[in-house]
């Protein structure tokens, strides 16, 4: 016997309570008043990821994941598929927007030290998002099969094959040995798997952020229409920046040399990845050996993971002026590191890269504990 209440509900609502979920999480969800526009970043990241999944799905209909064919298939998409150039440009520039949003998200989390206390899980999830995004971004870069993509893949696969032991086994599992005609098909599969994983991680971030948000004691507002209006405005501004880049600077932050086909007989003069991989590539390239490079990258990411412990301030204490100043300097340091890594190799850039990396580690391992401990007194 169905209860009378179940009978009054519509057919779908009684089986799948979408309306109740909408009321609980959007229309009647009570939230604090003074959230800035940049608090919409997780939502923008989710939107960018869905957009990239859709444009990537269209590209995958025409893309041929095989060495020697991949570059030509992308050229075919750009030149011969109706509006293929637009979808291809959506995908590459969408990546730029996504990375910009994630870098900004991490910057805001460090600046506001939101990794402290209950925010630690959100911080770890954001780092997980960042790391998976770096891998997905690299795989997408490799799938372009241009001159620098080709050598990035071959160097990585060869380094993986040389590693030996447990790390070598992982590399072998991913690359299947040194790069050959079939490697790109594997890379395409991992690109898709990791992209789907990113959707799950950003979903977890949005849920976890709400759970640990401080309770609103006085004068809350409903999410709808107040924050839906704010989200809409943020999305439009995000889309405006995106449109300007897509239509007037479609190759922003890319290495020009990657717009020629990969050539097994010719290594390009400048083997730099797109802008979003430059800092991590510089950290990985600073140690001459393969294993050393892997350890350097892991160390560069591990200091971010260790931030809740490196910050010695008391729980609930607000961040001080010096700490915030140092975070801004850190952001400039990472940008300078990317610029130095993108420049043609020379003695000066080699020294600058080492200095900027040294400052990066100094910031987390020495300056953060010192300033947070002194300023919270």
């Amino acid at each position, binding site marked *: 016997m169905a209860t009378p209440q179940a009978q009054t509900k519509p057919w779908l609502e009684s089986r799948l309570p979408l309306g109740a979920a909408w009321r609980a999480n959007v229309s009647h969800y009570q939230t604090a*008043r003074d959230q800035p526009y940049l608090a919409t970043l997780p939502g923008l990241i989710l939107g960018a990821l869905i957009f990239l999944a859709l444009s990537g799905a269209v590209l995958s209909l025409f893309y041929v994941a095989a060495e020697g064919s991949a570059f*030509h298939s992308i*050229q*075919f998409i*750009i*030149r*011969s598929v109706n509006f293929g*150039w*637009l979808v291809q*440009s959506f995908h590459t520039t969408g990546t730029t927007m996504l990375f910009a949003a994630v870098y900004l998200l991490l910057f805001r989390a460090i600046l506001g030290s939101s990794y402290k206390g209950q925010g630690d899980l959100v911080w770890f999830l954001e780092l997980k998002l960042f790391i998976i995004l770096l891998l997905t971004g690299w795989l997408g870069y490799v799938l372009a099969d241009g*001159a620098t993509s080709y050598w990035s893949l071959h160097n990585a696969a060869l380094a993986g094959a040389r590693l030996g032991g447990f790390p070598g086994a992982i590399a072998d599992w991913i690359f299947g040995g040194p790069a050959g005609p079939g490697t790109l098909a594997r890379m395409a599969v991992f690109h898709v798997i990791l992209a789907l994983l990113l959707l799950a991680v950003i979903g977890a971030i949005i849920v976890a952020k709400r759970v640990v948000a401080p309770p609103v004691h006085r004068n809350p*507002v409903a999410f709808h*229409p*107040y924050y839906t*209006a*704010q989200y*809409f*405005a943020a999305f*439009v*501004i995000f*889309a*405006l920046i995106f*449109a*300007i880049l*897509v*239509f*007037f600077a*479609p*190759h922003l932050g890319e290495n*020009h*040399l*990657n*717009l*020629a*086909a990969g050539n097994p*007989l010719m290594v390009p*003069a400048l083997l730099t990845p797109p802008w979003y991989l430059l800092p991590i590539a510089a950290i990985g390239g600073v140690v001459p050996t393969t294993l050393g490079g892997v350890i350097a990258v892991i160390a560069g990411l591990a200091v971010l993971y260790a931030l809740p412990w490196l910050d010695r301030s008391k729980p609930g204490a607000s961040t001080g002026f010096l700490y915030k100043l140092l975070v801004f300097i850190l952001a400039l340091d990472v940008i300078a590191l990317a610029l130095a890594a993108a420049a043609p190799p020379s003695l000066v850039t080699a020294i600058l890269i080492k200095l900027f990396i040294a400052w990066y580690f100094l910031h987390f391992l020495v300056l953060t504990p010192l300033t947070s401990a002194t300023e919270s007194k």
Partner: protein
Amino acid sequence: MRRTLLVTAALAVALLTHQARAEDTLNPPHWQSEGSFGSYDKAALQRGFLVYQTVCASCHAAGELHYRDLDALGFDTAQIAAIASNVKLPTGPATADDRFKNPYPDPAAAAALFGGAIPPDLSTIVSARPNGTRYVYDLLIGYAPAPGDVTLLPSHYYNTAYPGQQIAMPPPLKDNQVSYADGTAATAAQEASDVAAFLTWASDPNLDARKEIGLRATLFLIFLAILAIATKRKIWRESV
């Protein structure tokens, strides 16, 4: 009366031929496609294609391009069919749906012909070089006698624009190597400028559509952004 008519006719012909000629884009070198709102000059592209087909195509491939793509230069179907049928492929005359002819059966044949220096594919040469249009132009007019302290490699030429200054390609362009249908004087610099314009189109064939859609999309989104922010503010004003 007759004299006046003759002078008028001569003036009209002079004016018309003058209009048909290219504007002076060489001093200083510039291309119509440059800048945020630049678009392609189809007359320059057609002249550049003539130079490409007469000179470049004998040694360089442009395998990403099809003859059908030439309709973007303002050629009609019959003209494209005529252009393609003049190209002899191993299988017979080319058609509009064939890719631009590769002069070599394989890279090894090209390497054997030129002592290992394989002429690069020109499909994306402009976008694959920083400031590519200007680079192609500078390279094509950059040949000079080698300075006294430079010893050239065997079968290499001194070129001020090429990285390392020693290039295996012999100077490809000279004055009046082609004769332009629109009456433009075919100086080597004009040919270089036109072929640079053509190769810019070859690298980025969607530039015109991209900027046109981009302008509309940007204006629309600016309007929508103003509207969205105004709406948001109005909604928040009503919250107490």
